[in-house]
């Protein structure tokens, strides 16, 4: 089983000096925080805010690379979580064939947002996540804490 998730925003995690991408399902029942690096967070932020930078950033370049051959991102799925590392799959179509490519969720999300492709999470990932304590303080965060990333 997989659940479609929406990117709700980004926040800074001062304890780990990292950024967290917040994914929620459509019912707002499940939440999945994903820790990402600064440059990945910046890239996701640009896509969320629909900002076109003067020069193509790495994920814009990635999109151009696929666009050049009419390869299309059809969906991304966050599939596994082990030792705080998430795994994801990018599903592509190209020349009537389907391909699945292993990636980090940060790249998958940054690319999905630029490709208008849906983001899914497998049930096992959400289950593992909800059992963690971090979920609780994330739930308590105010919406104002999400959103713009200055970078």
């Amino acid at each position, binding site marked *: 089983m997989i659940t479609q998730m929406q990117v709700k925003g980004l926040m800074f995690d001062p304890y780990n000096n990292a950024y967290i991408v917040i994914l929620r399902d459509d019912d707002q029942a499940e939440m999945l925080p994903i820790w990402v690096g*600064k440059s990945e967070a910046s890239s996701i932020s640009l896509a969320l805010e629909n900002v076109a930078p003067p*020069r*193509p950033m790495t994920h814009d370049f990635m999109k151009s*690379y696929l666009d*050049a051959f009419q390869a299309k991102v059809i969906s991304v799925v966050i599939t596994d979580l082990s030792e705080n590392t998430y795994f994801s799959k990018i599903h592509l179509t190209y020349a009537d064939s389907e391909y699945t490519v292993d990636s980090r969720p940060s790249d998958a999300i940054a690319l999905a947002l630029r490709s208008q492709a849906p983001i899914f999470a497998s049930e096992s990932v959400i289950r593992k996540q909800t059992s963690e304590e971090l979920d609780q303080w994330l739930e308590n965060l105010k919406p104002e804490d999400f959103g713009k990333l200055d970078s």
Partner: protein
Amino acid sequence: MEARASQTTEPLIQLVVNRVVEDSNTDTRIIVLARTDDAAEHFMVWVGASEGEAIKRALDAAITPRPMSHDLVKSFGEHLGIKTERVVLTDVKSSTYYATVFLENKGVARTIDARPSDAIALALRCQAPIYVTQDVWRRRSGQNLDAWLSKLETKEV
């Protein structure tokens, strides 16, 4: 920009990445490239820290537990059969360098516009050659950069 590259009749100059220098004052990285026909002649490109690290990892043949962004682009190429043929630094405007990545798949050639950092990070992972046009080479920044660079590197050691 690719038009500009193809219009020129002057041969391109091939470059190799010599090293990545950390500029801790500005949290940027300097990519030092050398001419393959004259290693004493350098070309420098300033890039962001993460882009610089992506190039350094390729130079060091570093293995990361998970694929980083440019590893993912390479992986797309391997899955779809897209070959990175070459990378050309094609232009410089207001101290910003422009690159073109030449791709090929089943006889179909495509070019894409890129920042030099992404182009070089991909080229190193795909063993693709890196070139600069004669025009951009002539307009490369600064005359005394080598001296300045060695000062920067000495300071950091």
